[in-house]
C-alpha cells in the first residue's frame, strides 16, 4: 500500500506556517521581556503600538496551531507566550502616583463608609467591654490582674498609690528613647490590628472577642485611676493617641467582622464571591488602619511624652478624632461638588 497523497504537503505547509510566524513570536517575546523588567516608557512609540498587534498575532497563531499542528512543544510555547501577553496587556496598571492619590481621595474613605455598620458595632462592643471591665474591677480588684497582663500594666495595679499612678501619666520623657518607642508601638499595634482583621475569617467570633477584650482593658485601667480621682488626667493621657488608635482597632475589627459575616451570610452571591467582595473592601480599610496606627504611634511615642498638659492632650485627641470623622464621612460631599 502507498502513502496517501498530501502527507508531505501538510508537513511543508505546517513548517512554513512556523517559519513565517516565528519572527513575530520572537519579537513579541523580546518586547514582553523588556516591559516586564522596566516601565513601558522604555519602549519607543512604534514598539508600544506593535505590542497589542503582536499579541493578537500570537493568539491567532495559537488557534491555528491548536487546530492543525500536533507539535506539543510548539503549542506549549505559544500558550505560555500568549498567557504572558494576556497578563501584561489586560492587567491594566496605573502609575503608582495615581493609585496612591485614588486611595487617599476615594478608596479609603469609601471603604470605611461601606463598613459603617460594622464600625458602629465595633465601637459599641468597645464601650460594652469598657463598662464590663470597669464594673468587674470595681466589684473585685482581683479581676484587674486577670484582664491586664502584669507585664503590660507597667507596675500599675489597684494597690498602687496615687503618686505612682500620676507619675506614669506625666513623666515618660526620661526613660524611653522616644521615636524608637513610637516605632515599636506602631509595629506592635499594627500586628494586633492585622490579627483582628485576619481572625474575622472564623465567622467574626475571634474579632468580636478581641474588640471586647480591648474594651475590657480600657475599662479596668480607668477604674483604678477613677478610684484615686485621676480619671480626668488618665483621659488626657489616653486620648492624645487613643482616639486614633482605638478608632483604628475598631475599624480593623469591623473589617474582620465584615469578612466573617459575609462568609456566614453571603446573601444573593455565592459564598466565594461574597467572601472575595468583602475581602477587597476590608483590605483597603486595613491599609488605612496601618496609616492611622502610624499616626497613633507617633502621637503616643513622641507627643504624649513631651506634652504633659491635660488640656493640650485633650485638644490633640479631640482634633484627631474629628479629623478622621470628617475625612471618612464628609469627604464624599466635597467630591460630589467636583463631579
Amino acid at each position: 500500500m502507498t502513502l496517501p497523497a498530501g502527507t508531505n504537503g501538510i508537513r511543508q505547509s505546517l513548517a512554513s506556517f512556523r517559519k513565517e510566524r516565528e519572527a513575530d513570536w520572537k519579537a513579541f517575546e523580546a518586547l514582553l521581556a523588556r516591559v516586564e523588567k522596566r516601565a513601558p516608557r522604555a519602549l519607543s512609540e512604534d514598539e508600544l503600538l506593535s505590542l497589542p498587534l503582536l499579541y493578537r498575532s500570537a493568539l491567532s497563531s495559537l488557534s491555528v496551531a491548536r487546530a492543525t499542528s500536533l507539535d506539543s512543544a510548539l503549542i506549549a510555547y505559544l500558550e505560555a507566550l500568549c498567557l504572558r501577553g494576556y497578563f501584561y496587556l489586560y492587567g491594566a496598571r496605573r502609575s503608582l502616583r495615581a493609585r496612591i492619590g485614588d486611595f487617599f481621595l476615594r478608596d479609603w474613605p469609601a471603604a470605611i463608609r461601606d463598613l459603617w455598620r460594622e464600625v458602629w458595632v465595633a465601637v459599641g462592643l468597645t464601650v460594652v467591654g469598657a463598662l464590663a471591665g470597669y464594673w468587674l474591677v470595681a466589684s473585685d480588684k482581683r479581676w484587674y490582674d486577670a484582664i491586664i497582663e502584669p507585664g503590660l500594666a507597667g507596675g500599675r495595679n489597684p494597690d498602687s498609690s496615687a503618686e505612682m499612678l500620676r507619675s506614669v501619666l506625666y513623666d515618660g520623657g526620661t526613660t524611653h528613647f522616644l521615636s524608637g518607642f513610637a516605632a515599636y508601638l506602631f509595629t506592635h499595634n499594627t500586628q494586633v490590628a492585622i490579627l483582628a482583621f485576619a481572625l474575622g475569617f472564623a465567622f467574626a467570633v475571634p474579632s468580636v472577642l478581641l474588640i471586647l477584650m480591648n474594651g475590657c482593658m480600657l475599662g479596668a485601667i480607668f477604674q483604678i485611676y477613677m478610684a484615686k480621682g485621676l480619671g480626668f488626667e488618665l483621659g488626657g493621657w489616653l486620648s492624645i493617641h487613643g482616639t486614633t488608635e482605638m478608632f483604628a482597632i475598631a475599624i480593623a475589627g469591623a473589617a474582620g467582622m465584615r469578612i466573617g459575616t459575609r462568609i456566614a451570610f453571603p446573601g444573593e452571591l455565592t459564598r466565594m464571591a461574597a467572601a472575595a467582595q468583602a475581602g477587597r473592601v476590608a483590605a483597603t480599610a486595613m491599609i488605612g488602619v496601618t496609616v492611622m496606627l502610624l499616626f497613633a504611634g507617633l502621637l503616643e511615642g513622641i507627643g504624649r511624652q513631651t506634652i504633659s498638659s491635660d488640656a493640650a492632650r485633650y485638644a490633640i485627641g479631640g482634633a484627631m478624632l474629628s479629623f478622621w470623622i470628617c475625612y471618612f464621612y464628609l469627604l464624599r460631599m466635597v467630591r460630589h461638588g467636583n463631579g
Partner: protein
Amino acid sequence: MATARNPALLVRPLITPEGVDLRVRLADAGTRAAAFLLDVVIMVIATVVISLVALFGLAGLRAERIQPLFIVWIILIFLLRNAYFIVFEAGRRAATPGKRMLGVRVAARSGAGLTIDQVIARNLMREIEVFLPLSILAARGGTDVADTLSTIFGLVWALLFSLFPLFNRDRLRVGDLLAGTWVVEAPKVALLEDLSQRQDPFSSKFKFSVAQLDAYGIAELQKLEDVLRRDDYFALKAVAETIAHKIGAKVEPVDSKPFLTAYYGELRAHLERKLLLGNRKADKHAR
C-alpha cells in the same frame, strides 16, 4: 494526591476578550509550598543581614546615636514581615522571588487584572495561616505544661487555615479565597525545534504503510515526542522495540533513534492530515 496523578484536573478555562481559551494551569500544592519556603529563606537571610548590620552599627556608636539605628531596624523587620509579599506581588510580574523561580504567579480568578487591594487581602491573611501557628508554638515554649491541651487545640485550629489549600479543588489559600485570586503557572517556555523537520540520514531508509501509521494516536505521538526530546539511549531503545513489535518492523538497536525520528515524522504528518480532514484521533483506541 489525585491532582498529582492527573494534571488535567488543575487546568481552568481563561477566555481572553479575543475569544481564545488560554487554559491556565493552577500551581499545585507542592509548588506553592516550595515557593513559600524559598521566600522564607530569602526573608530570613535578609533579617540576619539587617540585624548584623544593626548590631555592628550599635557596637561602633555611642549610646545616644543608637536610637536612629534601632528605629530603622524595627521598621525594616516590620516591612519585611508585612510588605515583602505585597510589594512583589503588586509589581509587574505579580510574583515574589520564590514564585518567580518556580514559574508561578498570582492572578485574579475573574481573569481581569490583579488589583492592589486583592494583593493586600491575600497577604494579610498570611497572619493567621503562618504567623499564628508559629506564635502559638513560640508561646508553648514560654509557658508551663498546664497549657498543653489548649496549645494543641490552638495549633490544630491554626493548622486548619494553613492546610486550607489541600481541602479545595482550586488550591486556594484562605487569602486567595478572600481576595478572589489564585496562583497559576506562568513559565517562560523556550521555543524548541520541530522534531518532524529533523534531518537524519539514516531515517530516510524507513518507510511506513498506512496500516503501520494507523497503529497509534495523538496521545502516543506526544509520548514519543517526549522520549525523542529527552534523548536517553535506553528509553529510545525500549520504545523503538515496542513500536517495531507492534507495527511489525525490524529495527537494530543502533538504529533506534533514526527509526523513531522517521516514525515520529510520518505519524505526525499522518495524524495532522486526519486532523485537517476533521478526525482528531485521540489515542490508539480511537478510529
